[in-house]
């Protein structure tokens, strides 16, 4: 069988999940560490409404930057994110069928679901699940969300996160992610290598920790100001997503500072608690606006991490 190139893979997975009733969303237009942080996941898993979505999401992790010199590590990698709320009973089979869509002949391989529980303290989120191993290679994170924004989820959502570069390098049998064929004309390296270098240089060297700190404080101030003014708006007009974007900005700045080693012992714990506080505040407003009858205090006491 013809091996899919990188963009074909995204198309194949999008088509597969669209056929399962998923909305195919666009990648989010802000820096995020993972597809989980996009509102299409973080907000939509809250509350009672069923939801199915799939989208590719470039995900930035400054600490993983290697100036484009490591064949397996990327500062910005591509996730294919799928949310099924509530999860169908045959979800594992669906997932395995999606692998077949990528050209993985299941009978030729050893696919294992190994325990891996996911937790994102800055989002007040955690879940149980597995890392899916294909012949010893971790290709997917599979999670049943139990909590998000500090709130118990009912119904729970299943999250499937494919690591596209890894799968592509495996399928195309290339030694480096930069050798992946993105399209039939271009390699991954042609499209992304220079960007990896530039992002690494900025995050590790050029970024000014002082400016990052100032920005973080400013974004946080703006976010908390918005959350605090919730009652000044009619519920529907409250710019909730903007408050959430400000929280995401802070999360990314925290990651840059962390990669720089600019965060001290006690500060780290405190910063995580500050970001979590914003995320929890956003989640509570989202839920209380959706279910006013539930009596959840929207901007109530926010528990520190």
């Amino acid at each position, binding site marked *: 069988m013809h091996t899919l190139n990188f963009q074909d893979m995204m198309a194949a997975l999008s088509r597969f999940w669209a056929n399962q009733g998923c909305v195919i969303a666009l990648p989010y237009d802000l820096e995020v560490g993972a597809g989980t942080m996009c509102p299409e996941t973080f907000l939509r898993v809250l509350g009672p409404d069923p939801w199915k979505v799939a989208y590719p999401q470039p995900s930035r992790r400054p600490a993983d930057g290697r100036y484009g010199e*490591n*064949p*397996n590590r990327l500062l910005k990698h591509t996730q294919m994110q799928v949310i099924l709320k*509530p*999860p169908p*009973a045959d979800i*594992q*089979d669906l997932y*395995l069928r999606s692998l077949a869509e990528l050209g993985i002949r*299941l*009978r*030729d*391989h*050893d*696919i*294992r*679901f*190994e*325990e891996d*529980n996911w937790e994102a303290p800055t989002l007040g989120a955690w*879940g*149980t699940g*597995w890392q899916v191993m*294909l*012949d*010893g*290679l971790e290709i997917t994170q599979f999670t*049943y969300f*139990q909590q998000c924004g500090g709130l118990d989820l*009912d*119904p*729970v959502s299943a999250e499937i996160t494919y690591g596209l570069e890894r799968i592509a390098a*495996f399928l195309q049998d290339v030694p480096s992610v930069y050798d992946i064929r993105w399209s039939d004309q271009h390699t991954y390296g042609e499209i992304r290598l220079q960007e990896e270098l530039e992002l690494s240089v900025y995050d590790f060297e050029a970024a000014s920790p002082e400016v990052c700190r100032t920005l973080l404080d400013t974004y946080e101030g703006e976010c908390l100001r918005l959350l605090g003014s919730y009652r000044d708006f009619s519920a529907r007009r409250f710019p909730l997503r903007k408050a959430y974007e400000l929280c995401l900005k802070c999360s990314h700045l925290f990651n840059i500072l962390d990669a720089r*080693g600019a*965060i*001290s*012992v*006690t500060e*780290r*714990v405190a910063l995580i608690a500050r970001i979590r506080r914003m995320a929890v505040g956003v989640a509570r407003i989202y839920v209380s606006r959706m279910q006013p009858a539930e009596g959840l205090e929207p901007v109530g006491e926010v528990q520190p991490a």
Partner: protein
Amino acid sequence: MRDDSGKVESREAAVLASIPELLEAPGLGAAHFAGPGESDATLPVLLEIGCEEIPARFLVDAERQLGERLEKALVEARLVRQEAGAVAVAATEPGQRQRRAAKPPDKSRSRVKTFSTPRRLIAHVGSLLVKQPDQTEEVTGPPIKVAFDAEGKPTRAAESFASKNGVEVKDLLHVETAKGLYLAAKKMTIGRAAVEVLADLLPKVIAGMTFPKSMVWEETGVRFVRPIRWIVALLGEGDQSKIIPFEVAGVKSGNITRSHRLARKPQVAVTGFKDYTNKLRRGHVEIDPERRRRRVRQQIQKLLASDTPELVSSLEPEASPLAPYADVSAPIPENRAPVSNLVPDADLEGWVVASTEWPQPILGSFEQRFLELPREILITVMRDHQKYFALEPAGSDGESGAGPESRDGGLMPSFVTMLNVPGDPQGIIRRGHERVLTARLEDAGFFWHADQKIPLPDRVALLERVTYHDKLGSYADKIRRTRSIAEFICAELESENQLNPGQKGHALRAVELCKCDLTTQMVQEFTEIQGIVGGLYAKAQGEPDEVWQAIYDHYKPVNLDDRCPRSVVGAVVSLADKLDAVIGGFSVGLEPTGSSDPFGLRRAGNGIVKIATEALPGLDLYNLASRAHQEIEPILSSRVAGGWKQIESFLSERLAFYLEAVAGLKYDTIRAVLSPEVSHSWNVPSRVLERAKALEAARKSADFQALAAAAKRTRNILTKSAKPEDFGARMPVSAELLRSQEERELYSASEAARAELAVLESGSDCKAAFHRLAKLRPAVDQFFDKVMVMDPDLALRANRLRLLSDLDTLAFRRFADLSELEAAVAPDS
């Protein structure tokens, strides 16, 4: 049984194909059950809880828990006969459960047999009563005088009691009780059919299971370790079998199980345990973990002995049913000695057994150049990250080091990994694994070289930024505290000539550097070998042997089965590190409570006791720990007053645990030596161990048991019958007031022993000390036989009490508190 005709390729088609079979499955709705006259009839039960992949680390306990819960429920429901080799389900203490967790459940003792794979928990009961026996019980009602009025007519109380029990008042009985005559009713409960009882009981057994980490996934909100996707519940076998109908977590019970994910026929209907086991084997699932374990061992042996090790011949999934397991044990070619051996690893083997339904090993290899990396790092990459077995050249299995990863000697550039599919005929899976391992080893090699560009001493300053604990500060803070504790220990050992100044220097150097590896990329990637990595870097950077070995060993012993550090210097560093953890932890309220021990302090405490007992014998731990506490408590930012009392009893408890778990001593022996009645009871753990062992041996003699009985009696008299101020406990015994022969003899026996016991106390021969104590028996026995202590003459009485009080201090709570010893059933003579 239907044959497998009409083979279909796609999974969907296979599902459809199995549906007619399901509908025609024999026995559905046509079971013949024992009639009312045959209440002794029994039937087997099969329960399978089908799940998405259960984490390997929970599987053994989950299987045991299912067995215990089901057994208990069946006994309570009176569906199993009490006499049939009944074994009460023993409650286990949390600590014990943990210690047993690695072992497979003992299946031979229970009537409920259990099995498990990553996708299923299985229980099989060989014979269950088809119907509960009818039961008659007597229910006591109101007293007769309340139940009938003066004219003998039943009152409301009698009537309502009768109607509550469904009988007429005239049918009620009069029964005699301790409180008088009462009304009673005979209540007959007709036993229910097993199938009905099970339909109520099984969902409760399943939903009542608990796990260290559980989840919800559907609307009923049942918590389980992973989603339940199917349930097989059958009563009876073959044609007679019948589905036990119930629903848990939205899943209805049935008779359809699922094969291996890749099996051609993903779902099959089954009629009972035998049919189930056979069909699953054909579907590439072995339900019995012990058989999987045997298979793993045999297949690995075969693999390593075969001529072309990299080619694993195995049946393709498409081929005819796999050979039964008996064939797996086909003779291993003995003429060829394998060139490589597996580095033994029981934990990994357990993981492999718990994470596969159909284990099949394959051999892979990696490039020779990676062998420049230390053995410890290679094994960690393979074992912890990829779950591979490492291989070493045949004949290199001499036990020399502490664990498989730290034994001397090189490895082979190859590995064994366990597949969960029947084979890899084209080598596709092997190439995948080799590719992943190569990338991992490239990373490790990169870290190995990159980390050493900043030598360990230059990393000390970086520890200021690594958190140890919120309230306890950074690792740099921890090192400062640990250093002052280490200085105490060194001074102590130097004064006993157990340490020379050079070693002291090495110990303090090792303390300084021991946490520096936390700042390396290697440890950030492979956290499980922290300490070891530091030791390896220190070695590569030319630190003296005693220094790098002490760094390497400073987490040891990680539990009571682990070894102590290999040198005195290492023992000092490990002890100081752990004392800081315990003292610091208690000072900020992290002390262990119940089953929770967030900071692992029990483990640290066990390590402290083990080192003090085995690696640094003679060390006065009490004195050392209390000085360390005084020294470092003021340094800590948040203090809890009275912490020392807690730490003291914690360490004494850990020592008691050590004496029981490691030395295997009886609990009352331990209580006797650690009793607060004995001065300095736990100060020097190595001596406590000797004393406890000597006592355990000595207490078997009849003389000693008599002495222990006398000690109890003495203590009773002294504490319950008399007050110290009444008899002047501090005054000497007056020889003139000793009237009877027996008390004079006891007095002279005590005096004769006094000097000898003082000599024995300062020496180390505990056996001799207890032997000497035992010689007091005749005089003590005579005294208690003939002399009345509580004499009406108060002067005589006081003198006798003083004699006993003196004896108590001199003998009964000198080396151990003999009054703590419980009498043996049949003493040796």
